[in-house]
């Protein structure tokens, strides 16, 4: 019987992706917009954002055996990889393709149609961020947009690290749920 991946949690998708390639495709499909939106907001170019997203998901696929559910949700883990890919690419002055080469993935063909679809994401993430409850909005902005450390955010928001992590997790989930369908 075919699995309905929509009912499977991110943790479970990553666990099953070690044996079931479909599970990783579902993980990609679920978080594609979040990662593309993350890159688009930083580089402002749909083709570069697509390349960076491809490298991020390839690196995530390679890193699955090392993924352990700790105190961060899988989305934060994925965005952590995205941040590293972006930093590495900026440092080298070109989009990294190491993870894709290692996995034998061919170069991605970005058509005008794809570019148009990605450009349609511009502003979506910020709009969605604005729609979150104040606590979650501040936490997600501080962690994901400003890339600050949890202890620092906790100090500023005068709450515990655990509360910040929970707010980030819930905020990202809410944004992802809203991003499932194109606006």
């Amino acid at each position, binding site marked *: 019987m075919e699995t309905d991946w929509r009912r499977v949690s991110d943790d479970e998708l990553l666990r099953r*992706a*070690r*044996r079931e*390639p*479909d*599970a*990783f*495709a579902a993980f*990609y*499909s679920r978080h*594609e*917009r979040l990662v*593309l939106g993350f890159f688009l907001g930083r580089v402002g170019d749909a083709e570069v954002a*697509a390349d960076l*997203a*491809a490298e991020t*998901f*390839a*690196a995530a*696929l*390679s*890193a699955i*055996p*090392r993924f*352990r559910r*700790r*105190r*961060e949700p899988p989305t934060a*883990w994925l965005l*952590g*990889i995205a*941040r*590293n890919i972006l*930093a*590495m690419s900026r*440092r080298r002055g070109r989009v990294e393709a190491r993870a894709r080469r*290692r*996995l*034998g*993935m*061919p170069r*991605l*063909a*970005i058509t005008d149609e*794809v570019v148009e*679809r*990605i450009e349609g*994401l511009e502003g979506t993430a910020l709009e969605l961020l604005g729609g979150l409850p104040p606590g979650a909005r501040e936490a997600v902005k501080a962690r994901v947009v400003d*890339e*600050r*450390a*949890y*202890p620092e955010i906790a100090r500023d928001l005068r709450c515990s690290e655990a509360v910040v992590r929970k707010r980030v997790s819930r905020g990202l989930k809410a944004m992802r749920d809203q991003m499932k369908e194109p606006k």
Partner: protein
Amino acid sequence: MTLIPELEAQLEDAAARRRRRARRRAVASLATAAGAAVLVSSLLLVGGGDERGRGDRQAAQERGPEGALPVGTVIPKGEGTPPREADSTVVATGTTPFAGAWQLETSRNVGGPTPGRCLWISVLDPPAYEDGTPDPSGGSGFCGELGFRKTPGFTRAQKNVPTLRKVRGRLFLPKEVLVYGRVPERARRVVVTGKGGLRIDVEPHEGPKGMRGDFFVIPVRPRLGQARINWLDADGRPGSRGIALQPPVTSS
């Protein structure tokens, strides 16, 4: 529908290929356990000198740092093996020819006599001694200021792989020494130099965003004679007076 269906298909194919490779590796491991690799490893130990063969090195590089956490991961206090004394951030990972995968972490120094931060290197799957005895020490580290007194922003420490040991008067030297530390962010290269024109030149690893400084891990052989390490700026100029390496790298 996804925005880039081609990427979704590529990732699914790649995931399927990884699964097939994992199966093949499992079969190969069984063959190894049956004894096929015993002869090969003996030959490497006798004839291979201080480094594994070129093929091994290439294979290790292709595999990447297996078991290492992504850079930027925070290992919470009390978690990990051994349990971390404070939240510990992974700042660099990589693979060396003999030691295999390594992971470099930094954390706040708690309870120690020196203030500042700690830098810790873990060899994730430490290789055994020549006689097959496992090396119990997978890690090494130090705490203190971000730089040594005479080389601000620049530190150096060493991890022997396997750990130095003496059995019935016989000294077992490490096969590889991991020279590791921190350099200022303006460092573009980290260079080990020694007698006979020895020069090992690497690019430092960029740490996670918000972390001061960059990091390096350089594998060297023991008994190189006098050797020093320094960092170079963008123009190739030495960034400090340099730091001498320690035995067993410098013993002859």
